[in-house]
């Protein structure tokens, strides 16, 4: 008998989704209660995940197609917390656009469920299933504000391009199955013969699909449009949670079945990393919409995460995981600020709308200052440590070129972060924004800003947790 306790969070979430849907059918005006219940679902699932899986070293289920190890449990917990936080700060935004419906929390829950399946997948088919589950929910979420043209456009774009990349990914999977005779990662790793070049084709196809999901250059085209068009809370979800899952799959896919083919894929990852870092930094300079700018900056940040992956060492993987964890916190803080730019039930998302913010809203602009300097990687803020760990791992492998290009692109990136700070602090003020924000929004901003600001006092804890993740 399988130990089903290990997948209890997934089981719990799927049952809750069904329950919430039924509740929505039978009870009128149930959006508020669905919302609150889904928050509890996230929390309970996270607690179960901590209880059941945190101490597990490595166990497989269902003929080895699902794996529970240190990495999957850590990533699942971040995913669940990320989902929770996104949901918790969305409510006031959705209410203003009159789209506060029961579908929203259910869609978020199902997409998180898909991500959790992805995170513990150890099999190409399971992985693909999880990927599609989360993508389908994301397509709908992108168009969630269906009365706005931009939102529909974003959803359609995302759907078409994502379907294309899924196609490539499936093609890669079939090639790999054809040459190794199995879809299981562990079996593939024993069956591989590195002389078969067709396998390399398979890897490349899958990498393209995955690079699309994390929006690494040159497969990033969809990101700015989709980020701009989607409702802001959904954009927040896009920038945080799917990346965690996709990164986990990236790590597992590269390091479990294809570790022996490292010569084949290392250059590809280095290229993706360098291209993303540079492109993200340069393309963001000309942006005027904050959400588009965040899209480009997130492309850049994915570049740094990939730099850690390119090292082919446990330290590198750990540094990537640390990077993405800190990045998630910074993004949460950034979007909390963005959601506070509201005046007369209208949200503002142009950079110029921040003009002179420091005069009218000193605390808000101070938090945004901290967040932006942290995103730029200036010490002693958390963002610096994220980059520091990555470059430490990169330099251990003597990849000097990657490190120097990466650090130089942080200087370029610093320019556009500074530009926002300049607009906030040096320019003339505009009208005041509303200050009656929900308690949760204030809480999430304060909490994440303090985390960023004071991370330097206790940097060891995160490292200690992450250092238990040993994939190789």
């Amino acid at each position, binding site marked *: 008998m399988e130990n089903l306790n290990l997948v209890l969070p997934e089981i719990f979430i799927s049952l809750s989704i069904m329950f919430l849907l039924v509740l929505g059918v039978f009870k009128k005006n149930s959006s508020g209660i669905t919302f609150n219940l889904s928050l509890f679902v996230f929390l309970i699932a996270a607690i179960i995940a901590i209880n059941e899986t945190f101490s597990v070293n490595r166990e497989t289920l269902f003929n080895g197609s699902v794996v529970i190890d240190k990495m999957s449990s850590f990533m699942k917990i971040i995913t669940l917390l990320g989902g929770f936080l996104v949901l918790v700060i969305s409510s006031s935004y959705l209410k203003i656009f009159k789209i506060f419906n029961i579908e929203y929390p259910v869609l978020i829950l199902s997409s998180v469920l898909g991500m959790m399946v992805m995170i513990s997948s150890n099999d190409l088919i399971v992985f693909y299933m999880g990927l599609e589950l989360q993508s389908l929910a994301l397509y709908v979420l992108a168009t969630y504000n269906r009365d706005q043209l931009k939102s529909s456009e974003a959803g359609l774009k995302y759907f078409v391009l994502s379907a294309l990349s899924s196609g490539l990914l499936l093609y890669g999977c079939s090639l790999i199955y054809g040459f190794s005779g199995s879809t299981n990662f562990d079996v593939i790793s024993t069956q591989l013969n590195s002389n078969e070049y067709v396998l390399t084709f398979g890897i490349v196809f899958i990498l393209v699909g995955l690079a699309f999901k994390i929006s690494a250059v040159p497969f990033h085209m969809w990101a700015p449009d989709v980020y701009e068009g989607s409702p802001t809370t959904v954009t927040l979800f896009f920038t945080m949670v799917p990346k965690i899952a996709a990164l986990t799959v990236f790590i597992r896919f590269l390091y479990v079945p294809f570790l022996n083919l490292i010569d084949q894929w290392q250059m590809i990852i280095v290229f993706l990393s360098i291209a993303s870092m540079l492109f993200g930094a340069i393309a963001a300079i000309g942006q005027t919409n904050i959400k588009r700018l965040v899209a480009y900056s997130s492309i850049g940040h994915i570049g740094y995460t990939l730099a850690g992956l390119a090292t082919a060492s446990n330290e590198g993987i750990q540094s990537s995981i640390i990077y993405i964890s800190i990045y998630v916190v910074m993004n949460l803080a950034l979007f909390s600020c963005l959601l506070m730019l509201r005046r007369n039930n209208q949200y503002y998302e142009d950079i110029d709308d921040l003009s002179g913010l420091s005069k009218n809203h*000193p605390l808000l602009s101070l938090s945004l200052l901290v967040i932006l*300097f942290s995103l730029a990687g*200036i*010490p*002693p803020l958390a963002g*610096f440590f994220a980059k*520091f760990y990555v*470059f*430490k791992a990169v*330099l*251990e492998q003597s990849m*000097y070129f990657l*490190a*120097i290009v990466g*650090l*130089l692109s*942080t*200087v370029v990136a*610093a*320019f556009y972060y*500074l530009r926002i*700070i*300049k607009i906030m*602090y*040096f320019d003339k003020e505009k009208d005041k924004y509303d200050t009656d924000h929900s308690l949760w929004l204030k809480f999430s901003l304060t909490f994440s800003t303090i985390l960023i600001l004071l991370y*330097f006092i206790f*940097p*060891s804890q995160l*490292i*200690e947790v992450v250092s238990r993740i040993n994939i190789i």
Partner: protein
Amino acid sequence: MSFPILSSLILLPSIGALFLFFTKDKDGNNSTAKYVALFTSIVNFLISIYLWISFDQSISDFQFVEDRTWIEGFINYKVGVDGISILFIILTTFITPLCIISVNNSVKNRLRDFLIAILIMESFMIGVFCALDLVVFYLFFEAGLIPMFLIIGIWGGPKRVYSAFKFFLYTLLGSVLMLVAIISIYWISGTTDVVKLYEIGIDAKYQNLLWLAFFSSFAVKTPMWPVHTWLPDAHVEAPTAGSVLLAAILLKMAGYGFIRFSLGLFPVASEVFTPLIYTLSVIAIIFTSFIALMQEDMKKLIAYSSVAHMGFVTLGIFTLKQQGIEGSIIQMISHGLVSAALFLCVGVVYDRMHSRMINSYGGIVAIIPKYSILFMLFTLAALGLPGTSGFIGEFLILMGAFKDNFLVAVLASLGVILGAAYMLWLYKRVVFGKLVNEDLKKMLDLNKSEYLILTCLAIPTLFFGFYPDPLINTIEVSVSDLINMHNINLASK
């Protein structure tokens, strides 16, 4: 473990800043905030004086060392002082209260935020001078960019945005290469602890590249020719207190870094690159002196003179002679006092007439005599007149240089003459001559706070000019130990 005096020096200004954060922010004359800031910085100054008194000058080891695990098995939070760093700490804690007193006249809006920025800046600067771990050093070194960027950008002059960006990006670009070098040192030697690195040394085959990476950061910060162009812009646009901090302390971080890291960690490479430093220093001294002669703007002139003076400093450091290095340190301290005073002097007339152009002044000696006397004193100190602290520094540097390379020393001596030329000419045009503008007659002489600040700066300038022993005694053992260590390392390679 004894009382963590260095950590409290670092932390105290930040705590003061945090406290200020909770005071009410009124535009205009916010006296509570000012007294809190002043009190904090004076207490910090007293602590640093206590530190100096209880510092044992006869041993070269680092003292008051605190060593705590920070990131398990990787970085320790390690701070400590030797004879070299203690002087810079005192310079920092001495200049900061003077800056805070001076803001009355120059900063009109958001006084509280300005004071917070200055206090946080003080924390970071003290941190730079005590850090005994490369990563900790880098952290403080870079973190200082944030408050300085805001000081220039929020309270600066008309072109403040351009200057703030230039300052930030130039310095950041220089520093990222240093970060690569620091991490590489960790992988090469297994530690980033400076004291341990002094003992085990760094493999000679890596030293040249590492030295260059550190150099890229320090050269921008010093600033050395040809990467000095951010300095005049930053100085001109920054408010007076910002210029003072920049000139008096921020520039010294790089000189300190050269002594502590470039010389201490990379003896072989320092030997290799000495000609490069000599060339750049001599160019800086002569070239920027000529540029200074041509300036119309007083602040710009003093900014260029800073580049020339820092040229002397880098020259002195890389003579690798006892006199040269001691001279450089004294020159840095003296320049910290004198350039701070000169920027304040410019600030005094700027606050009254709102012009920094030299040609809008002239013949003010009879109108504001007290000011003219003090300005005279600092002008003479800047050009290195015997009896002022400027002389001791330049003299020792040139002595060290003559021991090492005759030609370089002769060329550098030319700089002394040029320095006298542009400073005296500046003084003559501003203070003497005919009265060019009737409005000048309405100028008031120094008020109490300005008088206090300038006198506070004049006393040590004169005192150390006549009696430099306290400074030399403090640094002597540390410097000779540094040179011994350098020679031993060099011989063993």
